[in-house]
């Protein structure tokens, strides 16, 4: 889009207008009669040879150390820099090409222009030492500051403005550079499902607030059938602390408000980004009835285009024991595998369609079958992912 716009711009006919010509009026410089434009001169940008937009091949004077090292030209060995003041009368073409003086461009009023830089007594070849050929000694060792560096007042500005003014400013400086907290509310899934003649709904959302290494998290998820009861609904409140560049340890509470009977859990898990860009959220839960369960969720964003993203997702539920009243059996209780294709109208707003296959195993499957339900099934999904 941007490219197209720029390209279109170029073709736009602009309105000609009378231009003001104000050249030659600057305070410092003077007019430049570019009368003799030699290739060398041109190569240095001092003038331009008509009909030769590309500069002439590098003349000897532009033989840099790097060039020489690559065999593109040869350099004569040069002595170490020896300050040798160049009188104005010796402004040769070579000299000018090095930028040490300027031929012909001098304002008539100042014949010494170009030699007026403080310390301008440069050897013209001073910069041509090969890197590391002889002159560059090894870097000195890493060391602590000398004692003098610790002398004097700790805060220089206090001597001028007083600590009374500087202390609050310093606290603000510290706070300003690295302490910014952020929040995000994200509904990763807000969806309806179709399948087995039953329409269902599901959500999964989270919120965080804090600095990058320490965050408070709220998470909620749930599902149910339209016209039926809420099958599962939970909310978690967690504290998250970074334990590695890509992972946070999260600890806190989980409360299930559906199904009946309700449960409260202690929650401990990790959330982060595994190699190959796999987002992982794995947690273990210990309920107020002493039941231990675990849930592992992994997903990956496969970018088909900049906006179209395919997201495979796998979720595994485990239990350490049978929980008949909740229909959960020991061991691997359920797996879920989903595939969602979303289109990011904006990164924050993406509708999607998808499909999900859920399967119960072992005693969990038996509990379901005993209740007249299927142990597994496929649902088709439509939903939206939103964050802000």
């Amino acid at each position, binding site marked *: 889009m*941007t490219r197209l716009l720029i390209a279109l711009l170029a073709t736009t006919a602009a309105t000609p207008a009378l231009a003001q010509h104000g050249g030659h009026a600057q305070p410092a410089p003077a007019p430049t009669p570019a009368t003799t434009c030699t290739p060398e001169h041109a190569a240095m940008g001092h003038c331009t040879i008509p009909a030769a937009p590309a500069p002439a091949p590098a003349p000897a004077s532009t033989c840099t150390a790097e060039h020489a090292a690559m065999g593109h030209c040869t350099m004569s060995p040069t002595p170490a820099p020896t300050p040798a003041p160049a009188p104005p009368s010796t402004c040769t073409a070579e000299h000018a090409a090095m930028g040490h003086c300027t031929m012909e461009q001098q304002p008539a009023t100042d014949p010494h*222009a170009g030699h007026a830089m403080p310390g301008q007594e440069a050897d013209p070849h001073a910069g041509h*030492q090969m890197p590391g050929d002889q002159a*560059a000694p090894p*870097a000195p060792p890493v060391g602590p500051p000398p004692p003098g560096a610790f*002398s004097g007042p700790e805060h*220089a500005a206090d001597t001028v403005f007083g600590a009374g003014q500087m202390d609050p*400013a310093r606290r603000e400086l510290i706070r300003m550079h690295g302490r910014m907290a952020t929040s995000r509310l994200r509904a990763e899934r807000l969806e309806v499902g179709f399948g087995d003649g039953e329409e269902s709904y599901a959500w999964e959302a989270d919120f965080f607030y804090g600095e990058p*290494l320490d965050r408070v998290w709220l998470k909620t998820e749930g599902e149910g059938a339209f016209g039926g009861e809420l099958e599962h609904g939970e909310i978690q409140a967690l504290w998250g602390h970074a334990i590695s560049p890509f992972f946070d340890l999260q600890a806190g509470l989980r409360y299930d408000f559906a199904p009946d009977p309700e449960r409260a859990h202690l929650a401990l898990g990790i959330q982060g980004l595994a*190699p190959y860009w796999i987002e992982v959220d794995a947690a273990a839960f210990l309920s107020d009835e002493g039941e231990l369960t675990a849930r592992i969720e992994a997903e990956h964003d496969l970018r088909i285009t900049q906006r179209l993203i395919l997201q495979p997702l796998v979720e595994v539920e485990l239990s350490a024991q049978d929980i008949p009243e909740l229909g959960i059996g020991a061991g691997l209780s359920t797996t879920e595998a989903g595939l969602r294709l979303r289109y990011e109208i904006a990164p924050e707003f993406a509708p999607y369609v998808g499909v999900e296959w859920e399967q119960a195993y072992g005693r969990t499957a038996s509990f379901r079958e005993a209740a007249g339900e299927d142990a597994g099934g496929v649902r088709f999904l439509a939903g939206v992912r939103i964050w802000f």
Partner: protein
Amino acid sequence: MIDRLALDRRSVLRGAATGAAGLAFSGLFPAWAQTGSPGIRPQMQTLSGTDIRLAVGYSNFRVGGRSGHAVTINGTIPAPLIRLREGQDVRIAVTNTLEEDTSIHWHGLILPFQMDGVPGVSFPGIRPGETFVYEFPVRQSGTYWFHSHSGLQEQQGHYGPMIIDPAGADPVAYDREHVIVLSDWSFLHPHQIMHKLRQEAGYFNRQRMTLAGRLSGDPEHQMSAEDRRMWAEMRMDPTDILDVNGTTYTYLINGHGPQENWTGLFRPGERVRLRIINAGAMSIFNIRIPGLPMTVVSADGQDVRPVTVDEFQISAAETYDVIVTPTEDRAYTFVAEAMDRSGMGRATLAPRLGMTAAVPPLRDRPILTMRDMGMGGMDHGAHGGGMDHSAHGGSAPAASADEPAPMSHDMRDPRNAPQVDLNPGVDMIAPAPVDRTGDPGVGLDDVGHRVLTYRDLVSLRPNTDRRQPTRTVEVHLTGNMERFMWSFDGVRLSENPEPLRFERNERVRMRLINDTMMAHPIHIHGHFWELVNGHSGNQPFKHTVNVQPGGTVDLDLTADAPGDWAFHCHLLLHMHAGMMRVVKVRPMDGGAA
């Protein structure tokens, strides 16, 4: 010497009476930045002389048909040009009409520490309604700029150019000059930009590698399967080049968007000096003028030996002066392409207003390489002692090149950077960083024409301090891309780290080691570094040094400015995230300055 005035009636009256450089400046742009500018001429309303008054305030800024909230100096983006002369004294009274603190830092100026304008380091800041008078002798010449050092105001328009004419004759001859201030404007509030990056890393990157791109054969999306696997394994995105880019930015040239097409005039045959300043908050630009070679004559305000190139990269806060000599009666397009090719600033140089030239399309977005990951010393070890960090350049034998055993390939091996606090805020330690001053910058390795590198810069003025540095100070540039955390040595300024301490007049070698895969323009206040680039004796002077991804830069420093100074990454949000330190030079008294 230091005045701290409340904005009372008296000072307002005095300001009105002085009349020099009016407080309120009419017009959308300062005169020098208006399109169709014939160049900077003395009759134009620049701010100069010994008494200058500036007012920081809220303004509306209009670009591309939209209007947004801005923080400006004297009401314009960019601010009025301040033009001084080497050797003069200047008093600059800055009045804060905002409802928050502000400040102005004079970027690249050598001045007393309390005039440097960094709240909490050099002074307390300028509170709402107050006026602070900066007063300092002007001891240098060249192209500089100034900007806020408070909050994120710089991103909102709080910046402007400064030219200091040399006391003697200018070694650079020119017939006409234009100031070209590059910047980045967003209608998002800068805090919002930072939030987005913290909420979703890579939020602004809409140029990622995609499956469709891969299948289409688009060169932007091609990468060997092994490379792709390696990047994915490391959870790094080879297209993450600029955190904030053309997705939200309108790139400005002298406050004009691409459509507004700022135009600077010339007469064919003239030597035109372009004073190019990158005032972008988060932007690195590639500069070229198709059809017109540029002769670089100055870098960061310091004269260098002329070197002619077709393109150069300018990192945030750097300045370059170039001479162009258009001989034809035609227009030329000045292209400031964002380093990640997500957009461009565009201006025109033309003999007459209204003329335009073709605007080249954006080139293919570059893809970072293993060299950008700090593995340059592994495949290039034999070419120049990249593996060897005890010596600069090729002085060390490359014997260790085929045997990288002592160097771990691990992307986060503490042995590769013992001084770094390897906390979760550090996602990577470059296993084999190399001196990249000979590289032209991300995306410019193979553009088919001459591109400037840091090794092309040779100071016109010989280095005066020829002492060998007595110690090395290493600073690792560290971060966590996914969490949008940035730091030095793994520690953010908010963790109140030990300052960098130098003894006054100490000669130090600083080695900046970029352990991230982003370029970082590192700026030191109150001093110029000498860039160690092989031109011993004429090492170029720099106030801001772009450290390329996975690269190192060696710098010689004469710590001759007593006081406290800021040292930070000049990508505004990186600094805001903590990539900053205080530099302390002591003792304060005694000893010749």
